[in-house]
């Protein structure tokens, strides 16, 4: 009885505050939830500032859109009553279905963003996260784990947790946490490895938003490991030539028979470093000799390919040196320096051709590059010859000037004698 009274008093008091707040914000659609919840601690606390950033709030949705209840009522017992459809805390397992109730409905989504896909939920069901959730494991990610709650921003917003530059960090919240991942028995070094990769550099340092991050290879809503036989298909979305060449090569079948994961065998998966010619060598970075035996047919081909690549690389370097020497002594060699790009392109092409594992094809590309690099080297030599001509011409001219000066001096002496 006493408790009931107390509750009534409290209710009236809160009601009074709410009434006051409602009067102050006269004219706005009343959303009484925030009046209390903005003062509550996490996880129930949601401030007006936070919720205003949410794309859903901006599109006119309110708390009640997900949590039910009646936000217009200033009476807490009415606003948060089962009768008004109030759901309270949404259980993690219910989250995908709740989000999907709108996001999987093309007719509903059309009115907000006709271009938005509506297959996220069905994709989610195919993902490892979705399957585990269905199996009753609530530690896996649901919509809100990646997209955040109450301040969900579109992926194009650079503060969004799923903006290209933020994706890896978002995934790493769980996947780099060894304690959290313990029950799943999978590695937690993917993020650490990824941050050393050429893709991470392209994304963060190069500012190339199209550079791959986690979801580019693993998928986002249908997140799942690519699988051994699918690896080269994933890489091929960008690395077309390499995949085509590899697909026709002897390695393709050999790796498939041995159930080896294609590209990853040599390039690794998360820690993909910029490839170097040293990968063909026998040193620490070398990859070939971990399977091949010294002296066999493939080893001979390897040496052949490596030496021709090295030769082109060296020719380009020496052409560069002489061109820069000529340039620093004032010769205009910008055309040849520009053509050096073509030589480097040819070298890149030759390196790509390695994926055929056929020395003759690599040699053909190297030949192309050698032609350009040699021409550039010759341009550098010509410039140096021209430079020497200039100096000889200058010398002759200076001798003539010295003669004239001496003659003038003699004349002056004579006149003044």
């Amino acid at each position: 009885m006493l408790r009931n009274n107390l509750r009534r008093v409290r209710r009236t008091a809160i009601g009074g505050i709410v009434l006051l707040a409602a009067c102050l914000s006269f004219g706005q659609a009343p959303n009484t939830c925030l009046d209390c919840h903005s003062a509550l601690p996490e996880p129930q606390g949601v401030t007006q500032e936070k919720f205003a950033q949410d794309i859903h709030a901006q599109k006119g949705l309110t708390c009640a859109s997900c949590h039910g209840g009646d936000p217009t009522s200033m009476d807490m017992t009415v606003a948060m009553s089962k009768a008004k459809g109030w759901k309270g805390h949404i259980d993690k397992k219910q989250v995908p279905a709740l989000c999907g109730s709108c996001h999987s409905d093309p007719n509903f989504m059309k009115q907000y963003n006709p271009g938005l896909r509506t297959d996220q939920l069905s994709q989610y069901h195919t993902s490892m996260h979705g399957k585990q959730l269905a199996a009753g494991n609530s530690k896996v990610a649901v919509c809100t784990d990646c997209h955040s709650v109450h301040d969900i921003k579109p992926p194009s917003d650079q503060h969004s947790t799923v903006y290209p530059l933020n994706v890896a960090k978002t995934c790493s919240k769980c996947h780099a946490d060894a304690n959290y991942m313990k029950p799943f028995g999978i590695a937690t070094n993917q993020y650490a490895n990824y941050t050393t990769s050429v893709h991470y550099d392209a994304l963060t340092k190069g500012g190339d938003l199209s550079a791959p991050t986690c979801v580019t290879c693993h998928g986002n809503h249908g997140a799942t490991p690519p699988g051994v036989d699918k690896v080269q298909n994933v890489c091929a979305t960008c690395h077309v030539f390499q995949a085509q060449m590899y697909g026709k090569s002897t390695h393709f079948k050999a790796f498939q028979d041995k159930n080896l994961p294609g590209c990853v065998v040599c390039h690794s998966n998360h820690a993909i470093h910029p490839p170097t010619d040293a990968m063909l060598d026998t040193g620490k970075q070398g990859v070939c000799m971990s399977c091949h035996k010294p002296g066999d047919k493939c080893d001979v081909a390897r040496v052949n390919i490596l030496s021709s690549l090295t030769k082109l690389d060296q020719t380009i370097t020496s052409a560069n040196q002489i061109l820069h020497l000529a340039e620093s002594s004032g010769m205009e060699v910008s055309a040849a320096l520009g053509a050096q790009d073509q030589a480097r392109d040819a070298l890149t092409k030759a390196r790509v051709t390695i994926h055929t594992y056929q020395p003759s094809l690599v040699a053909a590309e190297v030949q192309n590059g050698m032609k350009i690099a040699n021409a550039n080297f010759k341009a550098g030599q010509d410039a140096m010859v021209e430079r020497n001509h200039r100096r000889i011409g200058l010398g002759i001219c200076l001798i003539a000037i010295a003669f004239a000066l001496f003659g003038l001096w003699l004349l002056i002496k004579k006149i003044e004698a």
Partner: protein
Amino acid sequence: MLKKIIDWLDERLHLDGLLEPFRHKTVPTHKLSCWYFFGGITLFLFLIQLLTGILLLLYYKPGANEAFESVQYIVTRVQFGWLIRSIHSWSANLMVFTAVAHMFSVLFLKAYRKPRELTWITGMLLLFLVMGFGFSGYLLPWNQLAFFATTVGTQMAGQVPLIGQPILIFLRGGPEVTGATLTRFFGFHVAVLPGLVFVLIAIHLFFVQRQGMSVPPKVEKEWEQNPSLRREMKFFPNFALREMMAWYVAIGALGVLAALFPWDLGVKADPFGAAAAGIKPEWYFLFMYQTLKFIPAHIGFIDGEVLGIMGCGVVALLWMLLPFFDRERAGGKKSWMTGIGIFALVYVIVFTVYGYVAK
């Protein structure tokens, strides 16, 4: 044959009368005589600028899309184009140097005093025009360095209160440095400035011719005490031949510089590109640039940069009117002008070097 032609001309034009003053013109000979050469060398370098400038005009095309490429064409494709362009660039720099040396020599030898005040003023105006040549010519190859130097330089002009903004628009041909600026600067460089310079050189030389060469007061005093020490040299041929030797040395030096250190072309200007780090003006503007950097952002209510630019203008004006401050002093008191000259010289050298070294 030659004699006949000269006689024929003389009969009709009385060249004799025209050349008469030169026959009697003499140059005082003393231990400081060598400073008399700098004006002549500056004139010679200007003639070289004129000739190489005309040659460059054969192939140069003003315009944001073509300027850089046409200069590149000159230095790569046109035979000896590199030489002409390098000599033009080097000679420009040497000319600024010799003009400044000439100015300081006149200052220290006190050649600016009565009756030569107007010679000094025309000389100062010529020096400003030479700097204008340097500033406008620097942009013409339309490379990255020139683009930003011009942006900064015209920006400074825009800081002057009231008239600054109109000046900036006038110089740039718009609110930004664009192809329109290039067209303007080209016009200044090849038409406006040469016209002004010709007139001023004529006046300057006329004054020198009328007034004869000044003798430094110290030497003059010695000569007065001991008239037997007085030495003079005929301008023609004695001094002219020496001047010719100096010109030969100058052209030899130009040849060496142009052949061994051809002037760099740089990379084409990209108005949307980021300014390269460490953009600096040409060396002869460095001391001013460095001075402006030293002035704090705000002095009282006045913007520091505005104050600095106004200060530079006032100093330049005072410097031009310098002869009027140097009154004859009784009792052979030492003039403070030499002190100011030394201070200015040291200041310019120190700040130029500092500006060159500073990041």
